[in-house]
């Protein structure tokens, strides 16, 4: 990675993003510590569904933890949206581009550097928060690992969007705005069946369908992660692989544009 990951770590501390993550984690830990301890007492006799009762405890903790991780991903998207445009500002791009690395290698190293460093930060904060929750409520669920894994995938999808927009526009603000537009689009397109019914036009309905399958679906990936963490069956893996295909296509586009651009 030729030092780009290490540079991303130094840059993260310099930009003080790490303190925001630490602050949010601290708040989460304080909330957990202030929460009354959840306990289930068994007084019933006869035929009791133990699994169903333990879900009472498992569901709110897992769901709260999932929300926390999603928020951390949101913070990471905000914190990283400006990194690539910042690398390519006038006077700084010359420094990076005059080194013996191909542009594709530079961009991909930067993408994975940012993903590993900020993803690592999300995981680190998540482990602390979950460990405190386990300590307080005495409840551990290994399936929570799905939440970590899929939130990292979700972060990668958002990174591909912000980095590509950053390469095209050279602006961190536009990258954030584009990420927000994609977020709105995926929320709206989640109701594509209802929209189709409302449109009453087959061609328009088909366009909505195509858009639904094209646009990445980090929101649905979160839902998928929740299902896995709660031990529920997964209805479809399509949101995951369609998002990954979209991200791969986007990053290929970013590489092509980056290779052709003059700085």
């Amino acid at each position, binding site marked *: 990675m030729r030092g780009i990951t290490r*540079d991303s770590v130094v840059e993260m501390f310099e930009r003080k993003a790490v303190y925001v993550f630490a602050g949010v984690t601290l708040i989460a830990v304080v909330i957990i510590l202030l929460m009354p301890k959840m306990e289930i007492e068994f007084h019933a006799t006869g035929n009791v569904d133990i699994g169903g009762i333990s879900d009472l405890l498992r569901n709110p903790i897992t769901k709260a933890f999932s929300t926390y991780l999603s928020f951390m991903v949101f913070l990471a998207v905000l914190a990283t949206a400006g990194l690539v445009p910042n690398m390519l500002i006038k006077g*700084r791009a010359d420094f990076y581009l*005059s080194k013996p690395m191909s542009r594709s*290698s530079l961009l991909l190293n930067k993408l994975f550097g940012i993903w590993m460093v900020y993803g690592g930060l999300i995981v680190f904060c998540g482990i602390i928060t979950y460990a405190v929750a386990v300590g307080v409520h005495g409840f551990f669920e290994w399936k929570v690992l799905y939440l970590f894994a899929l939130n990292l995938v979700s972060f990668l999808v958002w990174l591909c969007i912000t980095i590509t927009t950053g390469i095209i526009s050279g602006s961190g603000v536009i990258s954030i705005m584009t990420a927000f537009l994609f977020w709105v689009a995926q929320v709206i397109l989640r109701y594509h069946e209802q929209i189709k019914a409302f449109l009453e036009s087959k061609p328009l309905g088909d366009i909505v369908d195509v858009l639904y399958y094209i646009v990445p679906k980090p929101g649905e990936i979160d839902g998928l992660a929740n299902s896995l963490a709660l031990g529920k069956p997964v209805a479809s893996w399509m949101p995951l692989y369609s998002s990954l295909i979209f991200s791969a296509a986007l990053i290929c586009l970013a590489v092509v544009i980056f290779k052709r651009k*003059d*700085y």
Partner: protein
Amino acid sequence: MNVVDVQELTKVYPARLRKRGIVALDNVTFSIQQGEVFGLLGPNGAGKTTFLKVLLGITQSTAGVVSIAGFNPGDPRSRQKVGYLPENHRFPGHLTGLGLLEFTGRLHGITRADIDDRTDHLLELVGMNRWANTKIKKYSKGMSQRIGLAQALMCEPEILLLDEPTDGVDPVGKIEIRQVLEKVRAEGKSIVMNSHLLSEVEVIADRVAILSKGRLLRISTVDELTSRKSQYEIEADIGSLFIEIPSEIGKIISISSKGLIAELVKEENINYIIDRLRMKKINIKSVKPMKVSLERSFIETLGAAGEG
């Protein structure tokens, strides 16, 4: 051996609101040899920075053939042994001076041990050891230039490309940077430098190219550019003697008891004047071609091209 070869290089930047783009380089052809210190001169917008950026693949040529260190600029191997100090650089502000050198070393694929060796040496060379652990964003312009030069030298370059290397540096710093460049030259490395400070280029460069509006106006050695071969200054004890020369030989521009300045029709006519002086038993102390400053020569070249 040529380290840089450029043939019919043209670069046109697309202009959004104009039909025709902006021509930054127009059919430029020349070569730079190994061990040569080459100066690129030209007014603002002449295409000097674009030229360096094309060599590094930072900007892509519109037409023409470019080779640096034997490679096409699009090939990352072309930059393996090339150091570059950009104009108006903004090195990553989160790094310290030492951090920048280490990061540069890693980007060049240099081993950890070599990085450690070179950083100490380079920080001392550019006089930045005291500030090695200070963040770059806190550096003055002169300090930034010094650390920029150090990062350009980090890969032990065979070719050093410098864009306004002494910009913002104080007079002492300029001398120190010149000394560094002379050391680099003594190691047989090539230096290509853009500079508005012609006096500086005059001192250090072997050859210069004068660019204007993207066109190559002139390329020659500094000596050729600054000497006036048709004019000679003769230092001699003339005293009150009157000297005259035929118009087909040339004319005396000025004369005093200590010598004269003559403009000759042909260079070899200097012998006629020397013979005349010797016939009159005048003691000749020195004969030297008249020189003008590089700055004057530069202005004249621009003027002759109608761009002064």
